């Protein structure tokens, strides 16, 4: 009997059969590939939008870029320059939506970072914003604490290693005896070493590592390690354990999209030594392990920044030219160019775009950007999965960084669907090649890779899938390679005194806190200049 051919037929129901037939014939899982509107952006290169302005607008401040740094600039202008009227400030954004890398357009989950670590007590500006947004609140005893529903709930992190999940991300389960012993003692040594450095100040009285990074110590002894790679530095310090190197590499890829052998040792150490949040009242948890998180990730913070900003922000507007006292923007809706005369221009865009705006010849750039892929997997959820998964779920030696369960903070008693946000920094080849490779890929290619990485963790993932949406980021974040933080990073140019740069890549670290700080600094400069 020729029965073997039947294995592939789902046999469960008519509906399932049709779905399966559909999958077999089209070979595809539902979902789409989104992405930054690089077609719009590439007009900059083609220079075909430099038509004559049809009208001229006058403002005091024009902000180019509606990501976190641009929004933070607007947010702080309201605070620092209260005399500005609503129409004195205008913000232009190329995309359809605000938020830059931290947006959540078209989904309930983010396309960028999912959380914010607790800020250091000296980061007053950020704490003030969190207070403003009712994220930092007073508890029933009148003591300041963070909204308990925004602090990540248990179970927080699990690592899938040797075929099972373990609590926490430090590899423990199923390690060979020898490796277990070395890794235990090395992790102990590593964390006591980094903890000590976290609280150490340099000769200039500043912490060795701080956030924003500009406030870190300038001691030459520590600046020198910027020329080493983080992996080299750790090896020099005698760390040999495979699981420790996996973990430190994982952290570097997670925050900076760069492997530990390609990242500056200073940036690597910054990850481990720059955070010293205050203990929280009544919370018996290490504050370093507390994250603020929302179903839509940091898009929540973007929403708050926007809410607190009274000025006009226009999307689908591309800046095509910047000069000392004016800029030109092209309106993709109305297909017209507007000239905007401004006292101050804030370029809240990454360096690779600034370069084009300032018409600087594209020679070898000091700023390197890593591509990423972020995917949101909409899946069926049930108790079986709830028992296994935590908020953050990582695959040991996985291709990607694992995934976040977006409804984790929800107070609903039952869930039937959820979204998993999967992160994959494309570190397998040089950024330029990886970017080209990524932008040429189709939905099918991405989903195959995602499933290959995640199916070991969720064995019936394919049966649970509703759709996979994919967002490849060509220039996801600046890469702090050796020598970058204290040399190449400083090679930015000044266009004109009235043009101020504000972007996290000026910090070399693509963190919400850094973008927030650069925006704040720009607002501060405008305040000082307009009062003098």
């Amino acid at each position, binding site marked *: 009997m020729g*029965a073997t051919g*039947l*294995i592939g037929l789902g*046999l469960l129901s008519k509906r399932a059969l049709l779905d399966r037939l559909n999958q077999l014939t089209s070979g595809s899982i539902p979902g789409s590939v989104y992405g930054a509107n690089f077609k719009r952006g590439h007009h900059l290169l083609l220079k075909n939008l430099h038509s004559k302005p049809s009208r001229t607008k006058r403002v005091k401040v024009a902000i180019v870029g509606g990501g976190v740094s641009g929004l933070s600039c607007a947010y702080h202008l309201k605070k620092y320059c209260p005399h500005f009227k609503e129409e004195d400030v205008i913000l232009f954004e190329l995309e359809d939506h605000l938020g830059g890398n931290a947006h959540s357009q078209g989904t309930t989950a983010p396309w960028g970072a999912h959380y914010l670590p607790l800020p250091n007590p000296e980061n007053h500006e950020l704490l003030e914003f969190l207070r403003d947004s009712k994220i930092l609140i007073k508890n029933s005893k009148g003591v300041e604490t963070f909204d308990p*529903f925004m602090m990540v709930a248990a179970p927080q992190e699990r690592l899938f290693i040797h075929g099972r999940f373990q609590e926490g991300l430090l590899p423990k389960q199923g390690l060979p005896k020898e490796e277990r012993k070395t890794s235990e003692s090395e992790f102990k040594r590593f964390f006591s070493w980094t903890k000590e450095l976290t609280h150490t100040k340099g000769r200039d009285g500043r912490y060795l590592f701080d956030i924003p990074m500009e406030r870190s110590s300038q001691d030459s002894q520590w600046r020198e390690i910027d020329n080493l790679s983080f992996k080299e530095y750790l090896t020099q310090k005698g760390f040999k354990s495979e699981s420790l190197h996996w973990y430190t590499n994982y952290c570097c890829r997670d925050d900076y999209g760069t492997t530990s052998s390609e990242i500056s040792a200073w940036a690597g150490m910054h990850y481990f030594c720059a955070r010293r949040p205050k203990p929280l009242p009544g919370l*018996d948890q290490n504050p370093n392990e507390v994250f603020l998180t929302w179903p839509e990730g940091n898009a929540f913070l973007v929403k708050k920044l926007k809410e607190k900003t009274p000025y006009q922000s226009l999307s689908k507007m591309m800046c095509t030219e910047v000069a000392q006292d004016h800029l030109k923007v092209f309106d993709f809706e109305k297909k017209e160019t507007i000239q905007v005369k401004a006292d101050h221009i804030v370029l809240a865009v990454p360096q690779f775009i600034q370069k084009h705006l300032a018409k600087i010849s594209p020679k070898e750039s000091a700023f390197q950007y890593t591509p990423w892929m972020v995917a949101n997997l909409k899946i069926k959820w049930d108790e079986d999965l709830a*028992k296994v998964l935590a908020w953050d779920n990582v695959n040991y030696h996985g291709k990607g960084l694992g995934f976040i369960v977006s409804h984790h903070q929800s107070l609903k*008693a039952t*869930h039937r669907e959820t979204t998993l946000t999967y992160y994959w920094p494309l570190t397998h080849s040089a950024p330029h090649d990886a970017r080209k490779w990524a932008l040429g890929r189709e939905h099918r290619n991405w989903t195959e890779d995602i499933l290959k990485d995640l199916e070991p963790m969720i064995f019936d993932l394919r049966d649970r899938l509703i759709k996979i949406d994919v967002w490849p980021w060509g220039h996801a974040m600046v890469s702090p390679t050796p020598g970058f933080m204290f040399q190449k990073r400083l090679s930015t140019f000044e266009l004109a005194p009235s043009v101020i740069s504000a972007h996290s890549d000026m910090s070399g670290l693509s963190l919400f806190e850094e973008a927030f700080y650069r925006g704040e600094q720009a607002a501060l400069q405008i305040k000082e200049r307009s009062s003098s």
Partner: protein
Amino acid sequence: MGKALLISVALISTCGLVYELIAGALASYLLGDSVTQFSLIIGTYLFSMGIGSYLSKYFKKGLLERFIQVELLVGLIGGFSAAVLFISFEHVHSFRLLLFTFVVITGALVGLEIPLLMRILKDEYDFSDLVSKIFSIDYVGALFASLLFPLVLVPYLGLLRTSFLFGGLNVAVGLWTLYLFRDRISNKTTLSTMGSLFFALIIAGFLGSQKMLHFAEGLKYGAPIVYKKQSKYQRLVITQQNGGFRLFLNGNLQFDSRDEYRYHEALIHPGLATLQSPRHVLVLGGGDGLAVREILKYPSIESITLVDLDPAMTKIFTTNPMLVELNKASLKHPKVKVINDDAFIWLRHNKKKFDFVAIDFPDPSNYSLGKLYSKSFFLELKRALKKEGLFSIQSTSPYFARESYWCVASTIEEAGFLITPYHAYVPSFGEWGYFIGSFGPYRKPENFPEELKFLTKASLESLFEFPPDMKRLPVPAQKLNNQILVHLFEKEWSRVN
């Protein structure tokens, strides 16, 4: 004659493939991992067919009788296979052993069919013609079965009835063959009695398959099921036995009608009876309306707000006569307002203050439910209580889950309440625990409403007595960021079950 047998080839090959598909589908339903299950079943089945074919050479005489016997047997075994496998799944030690025994026996019998038939027909056809006819018809039958099974049979008949239908067909082929060749067969009467008996059994099975499914589930719940519904949130099952009935949510017993009054009197009266003319009451959970029934015994009550997640639950307790009799139509009472919402989310948005809050949530068996027992929850609850008000909460068993029970105590205290722990014996649950939470010290009530079946002023004292095996243990509080209660609960109850 030859044509008739060729038609039976088509029929038996369809039947044969259907049994294989049923075994494969059942195995993937019940055991999961469909690719592995199908692969193993198909392999074993084909191999067993090979064994059958090999064994066929040992049948020397009376081939027609043998063929009819095989048909009748395979019909009976194949026909009942799905029902037997399905019902026994929860009760046999090794389901796989049973499954593969069935597969091997059916496969071997089906493997006998074609060689026997070919030998019966070899004198009537040219051999090459015979081989080509039989095999082509066999494969056509297989195609027919494989299309019919997923597109028509499973969606419209279900696995059990499909299996009976094809068992019946197999037996019918046997009986038909018997009729056609009645002149050449010696023991006609035995075969026809056997055939008719099998046929009757299979028809009974086909008609009774729905009942069988009920019976199978009833075995799981230990009593016949009288109601079942898969709501958006949970699976509701009501079973009935010995004049009482039980409600199960997701397989967990919620109450037994014969002793639920003990549970609900203990949940409500020690708290509510101490208040001077309470007016506004909130019930969180408790969509069965049984706590509301107790609350309605206080004439001073002006309003009862019940917040329960599942509309299916509150609806059946408002409409089903048996259940409405039990809760005395409490949910239809004009003072009662039913809200279907997530309790935690509702509470966060609530601005009203209540004299008394009764909390009757499911046990903290998972992280989502664990949030309803967290310190953050009780902090929200604080805002919903008047200064003189108090609340009572069911908090699992202080005997079976001692640490879990006292974990709830620490949690309520950390949220800034005074607690009064107490417990009651509910036969179908065992020793059960509760807390009263209040802002000021708790005074025991002087009077209870009339007609209580369990609580009296005299018996109340014993509720507050904790013998050494249930005494307080030092356990940290349940918080959103530790979910310690869920871990304790799982640990302690897995020791009991």
